[in-house]
């Protein structure tokens, strides 16, 4: 019986992240539009876009290989699995222990690996430029993420997200290293999701584009799957920040239905706050030059390193 309810909770988590991901995107876009005094599309527009893409035929380049056709599903699967392993409404889900925070980072790395390869498969200059820049950003964003994981893991004594959330709930305290890790994680999240100031998700045909350049040759259902994966990634980072730095409302392991429902409501509220802050940040800053991005990400890496050093020197910082 316990097994079935655990399995149900895990399945609920997978469906929850999948169904909320486009909503978060739509909400962020809507907020951004309102902040710019535009009306903006409905917050359900991403769902409609996905359905539309799904129904369209795929136009494949003549020399696209099997890798190009299977990459969307692999990217989506790796991102979905990673998103399903971050506690959103409850901790201690059935498969939480199968992967810790380092594994989640690496799963996103796998998704990026395939995306960058897919960008190079057709052999166009735009795809190559996108892949090249994505890998440059990743070569700084991923170590920064690992250093932030170190900070959090050294405080909580665990790399398991459930344990970390539990620790954060039971030891509410103010530390310097928390602040460093939070700022670093936000920078990494912005870069990894290709948001302003690193990349502009709303443009095509701009020399600075990164993510959009890699997926330029995709169309139809393949594009839909990739778009859904990138929406999932945004949701993953927001829920990761929420899980580590604002774990309130998370249902503990073995909670009853009411606890879980409360957790889900709290999660939606956190997503709304996260989406709003992201929109606010995006409208108040400008896109930076590509070669300024390494400085931006280098700051995150240094913050992570500083936090780790502080914790190596003293446990209480």
């Amino acid at each position: 019986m316990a097994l079935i309810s655990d399995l149900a909770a895990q399945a609920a988590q997978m469906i929850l992240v999948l169904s909320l991901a486009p909503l978060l995107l739509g909400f962020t876009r809507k907020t951004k539009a309102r902040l710019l005094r535009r009306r903006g599309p409905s917050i359900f527009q991403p769902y409609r876009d996905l359905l539309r893409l799904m129904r369209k035929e795929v136009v494949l380049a003549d020399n696209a290989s099997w890798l190009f056709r299977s990459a969307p599903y692999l990217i989506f699967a790796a991102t979905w699995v990673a998103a399903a392993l971050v506690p959103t409404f409850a901790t201690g889900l059935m498969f939480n222990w199968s992967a810790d925070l380092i594994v989640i980072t690496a799963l996103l790395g796998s998704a990026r690996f395939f995306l960058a390869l897919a960008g190079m498969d057709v052999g166009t200059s735009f795809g190559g430029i996108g892949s090249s820049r994505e890998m440059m950003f990743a070569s700084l964003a991923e170590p920064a993420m690992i250093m932030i994981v170190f900070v959090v893991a050294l405080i909580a004594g665990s790399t398991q997200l459930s344990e970390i959330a539990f620790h954060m709930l039971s030891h509410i305290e103010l530390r310097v290293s928390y602040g460093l890790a939070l700022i670093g994680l936000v920078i990494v999240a912005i870069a990894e999701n290709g948001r302003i100031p690193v990349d502009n998700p709303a443009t095509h045909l701009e020399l600075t584009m990164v993510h959009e350049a890699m997926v330029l040759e995709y169309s139809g259902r393949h594009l839909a799957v990739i778009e859904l994966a990138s929406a999932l990634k945004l949701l993953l980072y927001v829920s990761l920040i929420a899980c580590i730095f604002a774990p309130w409302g998370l249902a503990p392991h073995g909670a009853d239905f009411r606890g879980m429902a409360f957790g889900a409501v709290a999660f939606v509220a956190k997503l709304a706050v996260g989406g709003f802050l992201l929109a606010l940040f995006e409208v108040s800053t400008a896109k930076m030059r590509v070669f300024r991005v390494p400085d931006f990400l280098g700051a995150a890496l240094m913050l992570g390193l500083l936090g780790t050093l502080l914790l190596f020197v003293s446990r209480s910082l």
Partner: protein
Amino acid sequence: MSLTVALLSIAALLGAAGLAIALARSVEATRIIYGLCFGFSLILFVAAVVPRGAAALTAALPLGLPWIGAHFRMDVLSAFFLAIVNLGGAAASLYAIGYGAHEKHPSRILPFFPAFLAGMNLVLLADDAFSFLVAWEFMSLSSWALVMAHHHDAENRRAGFIYLLMASFGTLALLMAFGLLAGSVGGYSFADIRDAAHGPSWKSGLVLALVLLGAGSKAGLVPLHIWLPLAHPAAPSHVSALMSGVMTKVAIYGFIRIVFDLLGPPEFWWSMPTLTLGAITAMLGILSATIQSDLKKLLAYSTIENIGIIFVALGLALAFKANGMALPAALAFTAALFHVFNHSLFKSLLFFGAGAVQGATGERDIERLGGLIHSMPRTAFVFLGACLAISALPPLNGFVSEWLVFQAVLLSPSLPQWSLKLLVPAVGVALALSAALCAGCFVRAYGVAFLGRARSIAAKDARETDPWSLSAMSGLLALCLLAGLFPSYMIDTITPAAKLFVGGHVPTQGDIPWMSIVPIAESRSSYNGLLVFVFIIFSASVAALIVRRFGSKAIRRGPAWDCGYPDPSPATQYTGSSFAQPIRRTLGNVAFVARDHLDMPPPGDTRPARFGIEVHDRVWDGIYTPILRGVEFCADQLNRMNYLTIQEYLGLVFIALVGLLLVIAIWP
């Protein structure tokens, strides 16, 4: 029993080398010799993995120096490395049955290949300094002969010369290390060295430095790595695979054998040079790999990176062991040996793939490849698997060992020494950076060589490689996947060695339900590669099914869109050097001085504009050029001695004699 079988097989390998000379003119020699090597390697592999008692097996043979003989011993560490070496050896032999057919002068390779295998095996079994050094030198020289197989190429001759210099230098360092270890009594068997009283701190420090020089130069530790990216690519690909995937591991074995076993209980500061050099090696290796356009050179630099990771893990193990922290020491040691195993698998596979590409197209330069996924689909598939594994992506094996290293780093705040507390986070950053850069490096290598459109006619007309090579590559890929999905089995295999050398062990992983791995405690960290794999397959299938069920199934082929401006010329694709440009520009100047220069003719001038990249190796310019200059200067000065009169020569002899007598008189 296992040891006897192992020694007999090594003798048989040496016999095969002799047979190769006898068969030099036969057409079938290639198949016969590689077939024999495959068989003997498999026998050696089985001898290494069959269950034995806890006690080490020993044998003494009346070979070598009279009255001393040669001692051989097989303990858990030797057996572990023996399994790795012979797995790699068997795979390389199987691959070479097919690949060797491309060889124009097989008689330059065939006698040395079995001898090289035998040499590596003998190093692992040697139980006295004399046999160890002889086997080590035998391994170096036979691999040198293989590097020189294509000696018509001036580049290869230079590579062979530098390799020979560095190898003799390394052996000299090891010789002196053993001299110090044996002490004044002169017991050169490992048992005597183990029992001897451990000398003062400066003496063990000196031995450590010499071992880092000796084993480090063979493994490719910066700054002794310079021969490796020259020599590994110069050899035929199956030999490159052995040198990069396997021989570097023999060097690691030498380091572990001396530092963890013979040198006695470690002191904490031993870990500091090991950690620092390891971190620098990892960073420099992967940064250099990222800018290479020669596929085999790229792989050789990536080997340097992995050696760095292994040395970092060994350094952590030393630090923990010196502080009596048995469990973390065992974790770091396990991570190191696991990575040794993993790297031997995927690096051999990558070199085989590079060899297959070279055989099919005659090209090693990725800038002249492209689109091979269409013409060599199977090779492309296995190469992709190896790229995923080496980039430490779950659920393959490379990720597991890197994950274990990270877990070991996370345990290091409890180290009491301040110097280590400050050093380990920096090493952690270097590890994380090199892991991320590695993914970029292999996206570039795979994307430029295998994806896109063919950049040359040779790449366009490439044919799939032969079934022997494919079977060797597929076997290695299967092992990579298995080691990633069932890491608990590997960790339990390493446990006895960890118990013996660092005095602790991680919890037995075989008992943990669902085959996950829990290196310390479940509340701390756990990983289940199998479940992650099943999860990914499940999610991908669900997504594909739903899309197939509810979405459109229509597909139309058309020209690439490319924002409306597609250009049919393959030269408009992104090249390898343009792919590496952002990394060259942001991080490149850490490792090397890279300058882009543009030669733009003034208006009216009809010559073409040129864009060039100038790369200077800081290690070469900073260390080796001054040494070379010094050697040249001394040679010039000593050259005068060639033109003395007979009186002056006699005077020199007289002065030397007086000097020696004085030394004897003053010496206590």
